[in-house]
């Protein structure tokens, strides 16, 4: 009788452990997601292949890009708002492209960086030569609060994002109150500077 009880208890424990393992098994999305290092604005976030620091976040109704000669181009509009994330990025070991820059909203939507040229996600960074510049996103104004910047590197070998490689996630610190204030004080036009090597 006692052995039967022990066997039943062991069977129940094993079943519970089995259920726990099944539940703890990462989903395919989690398994294939990059390994992200997290941080906040103003702080350098390190990964094995690159470092990133978000220096400033500014929303705007229209933007005006600066060309390589310092001339300011015509204003660009968007159906939503522009979010200009000014950041410093440095490759540490190999050349790096931040082509996987996305803005993830509180609702889980992900906005890819705008296709506007001459932004930080379009340049190839070489190790030891940090670069400062803008990342541009076009999002609905209501999605600004709680937005998180996610940057994945572009893979050399695979011709796409390095989904098995490192990534950075930066909480842009856009609380409801702060985002609301930024939107209220948002300039109608913002001049965006060039990418520059530091």
């Amino acid at each position, binding site marked *: 009788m006692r052995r039967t009880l022990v066997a039943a208890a062991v069977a129940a424990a094993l079943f519970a452990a089995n259920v726990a393992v099944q539940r703890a098994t990462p989903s395919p999305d989690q398994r294939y997601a990059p390994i992200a290092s997290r941080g906040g604005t103003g702080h350098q976030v390190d990964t094995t292949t690159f470092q990133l620091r978000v220096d400033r976040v500014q929303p705007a109704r229209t933007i005006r890009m600066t060309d390589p000669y310092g001339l300011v181009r015509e204003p660009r509009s968007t159906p939503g708002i522009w979010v200009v994330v000014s950041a410093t990025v440095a490759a540490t*070991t190999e050349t790096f492209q931040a082509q996987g820059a996305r803005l993830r909203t509180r609702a889980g939507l992900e906005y890819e960086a705008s296709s506007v040229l001459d932004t930080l996600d379009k340049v190839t960074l070489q190790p*030891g*030569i940090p670069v400062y510049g803008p990342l541009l996103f076009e999002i609905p104004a209501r999605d600004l609060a709680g937005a998180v910047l996610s940057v994945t590197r572009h893979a050399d070998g695979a011709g796409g994002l*390095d989904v*098995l490689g490192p990534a950075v996630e930066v909480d842009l610190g856009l609380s409801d109150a702060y985002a609301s204030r930024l939107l209220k004080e948002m300039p109608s036009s913002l001049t965006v500077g060039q990418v520059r*090597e530091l």
Partner: protein
Amino acid sequence: MTWRRQLAYGLGLLVLVPAVIAAAVLPWREKYEVRSGKGGREVVASQGRAATLDGVEWRLKSITEGRLQEEFSRPLPPRTKIAVVVVSATPRDARASAWFARETGSCKIYAADGAGRVWERSFRTDLAPDSPHAVSCQVLDEDYTLAPVPVGKEHTIQAEYVVPADAFSDLRVEVRLSPDRATVRLAP
């Protein structure tokens, strides 16, 4: 259960657990190497010696400091130098000779330092004067079609890099070949 039986179970577990883990992990290694471009065969040579891979003899000819060629060139990033690298590739047999005319695959030349940092070549045209060297491993004939390099003939390739000034004195070269997944490492 006797202790012998327990020992047998224990030893069985010692074998099975690593085997299961290896079966789950090892298939990812090749995927990782293919996706990241890392791994594969490596040959190494230093002090002016040649490294031979699949019948092609690779040699680092020189690493010299370049300078901007035009007065109004875009300035270099702060605290950087121009590295002008010349590498030679000499086929030693017919198969290696034909390798230079292949239409698929790539041969990328990188600058690297002792700390493991790797730089891609710059495509700026104002970093070095015009040179008699080729810009890639492939050779074009007068009709602009791919041509083999004759056995024993040295094919020289020049590439320019913008690197941090602190890395310049420690530079070496990596030639990465695909789809062979092979790397030739050449040190001065």
